């Protein structure tokens, strides 16, 4: 039935522009590619590269003022760029399914999950009678991995976890039995192990049905592992395209080379696989960002530390935190978030706390920072137990211990300029006068490699990476000895991530800082941490030096986490 000679989707010279007050801004400058029946293609690039715009333009759902200004989107020979609204409504859902990026915001919170699946099935004419529609909805959700679908149909999105919601969205995307599925960063908001399960599942589903898939992702490892063809985008242009392995092993464009170098998942494989090549790489030009220098720096530090073992600055013993969860009325159930956790952090080193969400790693950070009080156990910082401190002593302790949190958009007050944001800890702790504080802000901005003029600007004028630098500068303001980094690079693009990790490593060797690095991303751990504690369900299941954990993980759970790193199985002959 399908004509094998004409491709399923053919994008020709696609140009997209956004209207702004200062005129129109081009987001895509003539993008062309094809997707064959049943083929899996991935578009890779950093945010702003135009990869999501491409996905949105295909189904003609560009956000805001975006418009296709030139080119064609031929889906089975029909030009979607010029199609009428009703023609498009006909193609969406049953011709092209779409799995959006963020599972938290893409389901309507006021309708039950079942309702939202059923309306899709009805709109695409898959079934009509109420009973058939319901049956199909249960089937679709079960296929997507929701085992108790018939029971959970009546629940609302907020009663589902992120992973479950993503399954629902995949179910919705596939419920019209589309010929092409566009998956826009379908798992970037999820834990690595959940990500792997969902992607495996998606692969099986589309493979069985012969559905073509267009992946949009910033994760090169993931793209290479899942897709046959790779398209690398940069600033609205396709800079490189070809079979995945070929692109990875023999990247021609400098941007692709940088992307490969910065991807922590791939980099970590590289030091294991081809350490002898490191020497050559070290002399590479600046285009080879971050990771290589990071790895060598980490190695040097590891040698140095092995030679001079230092005092533990943080000692945590049998730390336990029990939350009471209300079950309605006055009853409550105990939930042990942190269960007899013990570890030490030697001065001037980085310890990574790794685990999936819900494993209790962030609670440990909060307990250490004194933002939550421990149920039992002790935390000693610099030899003093901090669980018994009163408010004033805790206040003083905070001078030596500062946090950097995950979301660079949420942790900066949009109404306070950068200079005052960085100076705020100084003000609160009454350090110096106005002039000396201003000098310190200048010094800090230089330390985190930001231009001094930024002091008068406001957070919304900064990029995500710049904001995270500001957060780091604010944490450094009081000259602390310890910095707690809670998923501090998880929300950033790979290239920016590499830069921030680099900055953190430099600051550590310069200022002798001690880091507690909390993350779900083992790939990042590899390049930054000296020691690793793996947490699962509130307990530490494995604890060793980074090299040991990566070389010979003892626990099955750790092995699962390691396997889940996208692209872990790909060998790159750099």
């Amino acid at each position, binding site marked *: 039935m399908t004509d094998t000679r004409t491709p399923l989707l053919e994008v020709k010279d696609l140009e997209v522009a956004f209207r702004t007050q200062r005129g129109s801004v081009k987001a895509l400058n003539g993008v062309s590619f094809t997707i064959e029946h049943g083929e899996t293609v991935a578009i890779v690039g950093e945010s702003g590269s135009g990869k999501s715009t491409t996905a949105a333009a295909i*189904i003609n*759902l560009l*956000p805001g003022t975006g418009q296709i200004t030139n080119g064609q989107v031929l889906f089975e020979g029909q030009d979607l760029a010029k199609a009428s*609204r*009703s023609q498009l*409504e*006909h*193609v*969406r*859902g*049953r011709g092209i*399914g*779409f799995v*959006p*990026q*963020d599972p938290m*915001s*893409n*389901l*309507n*919170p*006021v*309708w*039950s999950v079942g309702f939202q699946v059923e*309306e*899709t099935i009805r*709109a*695409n004419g898959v079934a009509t009678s109420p009973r058939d529609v319901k049956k199909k909805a249960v089937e679709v959700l079960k296929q997507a991995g929701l085992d108790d679908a018939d029971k959970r149909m009546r629940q*609302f999105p*907020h009663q589902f976890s992120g992973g479950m919601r993503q399954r629902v*969205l995949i179910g*919705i995307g596939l419920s*019209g039995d589309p010929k092409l599925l566009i998956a826009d960063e379908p798992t970037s908001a999820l834990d690595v192990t959940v990500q792997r399960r969902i992607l495996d599942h998606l692969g099986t589903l589309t493979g069985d049905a012969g559905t073509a898939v267009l992946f949009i992702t910033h994760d090169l490892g993931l793209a290479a592992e899942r897709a046959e063809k790779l398209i690398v985008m940069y600033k609205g242009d396709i800079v490189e395209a070809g079979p995945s392995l070929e692109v990875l092993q023999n990247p021609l464009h400098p941007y692709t080379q940088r992307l490969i170098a910065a991807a922590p998942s791939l980099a970590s494989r590289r030091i294991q696989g081809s350490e002898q090549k490191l020497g050559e790489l070290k002399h590479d030009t600046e285009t080879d960002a971050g990771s290589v220098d990071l790895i060598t720096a980490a190695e040097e530090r590891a040698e140095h530390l092995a030679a001079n073992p230092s005092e533990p600055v943080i000692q945590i013993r049998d730390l336990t935190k029990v939350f009471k969860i209300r*079950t*309605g*009325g006055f009853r409550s159930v105990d939930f042990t978030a942190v269960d007899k956790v013990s570890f030490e952090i030697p001065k001037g080193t980085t310890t990574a706390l790794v685990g999936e969400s819900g494993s209790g790693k962030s609670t440990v950070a909060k307990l250490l920072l004194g933002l939550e009080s421990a149920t039992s156990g002790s935390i000693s910082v610099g030899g003093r137990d901090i669980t018994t401190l009163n408010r004033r002593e805790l206040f003083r302790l905070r001078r030596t211990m500062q946090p950097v949190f995950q979301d660079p958009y949420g942790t900066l007050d949009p109404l306070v300029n950068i200079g005052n944001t960085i100076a705020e800890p100084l003000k609160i702790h009454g350090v110096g006068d106005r002039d000396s504080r201003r000098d310190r802000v200048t010094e800090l901005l230089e330390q985190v490699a930001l231009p001094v003029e930024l002091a008068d600007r406001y957070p919304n004028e900064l990029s995500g990476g710049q904001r995270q630098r500001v957060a780091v500068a604010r944490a450094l303001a009081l000259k602390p000895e310890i910095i707690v980094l809670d998923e501090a690079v998880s929300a950033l693009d790979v290239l920016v991530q590499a830069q921030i990790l680099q900055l953190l490593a430099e600051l550590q060797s310069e200022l002798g800082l001690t880091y507690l690095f909390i993350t779900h991303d083992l790939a990042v751990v590899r390049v930054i941490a000296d020691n690793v504690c793996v947490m699962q369900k509130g307990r530490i299941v494995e604890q060793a030096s980074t090299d040991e954990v990566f070389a010979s993980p003892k626990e099955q759970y750790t092995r699962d986490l390691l396997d889940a790193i996208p692209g872990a199985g790909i060998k790159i002959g750099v």
Partner: protein
Amino acid sequence: MVFYVIRRILQAIPVLIGTTFLIYFLVFAMPGNPVQALFGDKTPNPALLAELEKQYHLNEPFIVQYLYYLRDVVTGNFGVSFSGQSVNDVLARTFPVTARLALMAVVIEMVVGVTIGLVAGLRKGKLFDLSSLVISLLFLSVPIFVICFIGQFFLGFKLGWFRTTVGADASIPNLILPAIVLASSLVAINIRLTRGSVIETLNNDFVRTAYSKGLSRRRVIPVHVLRNSLIPVTTQLGADFGILLVGATVTEGIFNVPGVGNTLYQAIIRGERPTVVSFVTVMVLLYLVVNIIIDLIYAVLDPRIRYVK
């Protein structure tokens, strides 16, 4: 659900006590002797005066009087008006009229406000949106009694579409003009609120996802845009009810509607303490009940707000 309602009712008790205390204190502080006022220009017999004062506990200290009053409120006895009618009877007669008027105003507000607001939100920045902004600002900035007179003059007197005053026959057709006037400023607020809410909802990812599922515009707008936009509008309805009560006092006075507002207005002018205090108490009570109901509707509209399991 039951737990939540009980908690809300318990929370309403201190509010009720606080407001009634305030009202009682203000009325108490009004100059003049209420018993003396009963006699008008005549000079009463001092013995009778003392007897009456004793009967109404007027010789007791303020706080004792207040406690007597609270006892009466709890037992549902609101006293007797100057004309000799029991206040309960007056309430029973006037309340249905005001309820009808208020309900009509709310219906007009919701239908007109939400419709115009939705269209304005969907056509952000277009002519319809801008003209709705200008008109709603006009209605918001003109005081309600001015709108009353304008409505009365043009729609009632010049065009003769409606009766200029209502009088004793407070039937639905006769109440249309007062209801429109009463709703006018609320419609203006509602338009602005709905418009903003619709624009915000349109920006949500799930709206785009709804289109990507293959749904038509005709389905996405009511089901995924309007439904979500109504949540803040409904909350506003509770606060609107307060404006409605104040507006009713003025509007009923001008259109001579025999409702709660009009009676209260007359009672304030005549200094009828029992009537003023009782009516205001009932209004506060009503306001609290309406807001509890609104919060329950809110839970129906937004399943994320679950009060109790």
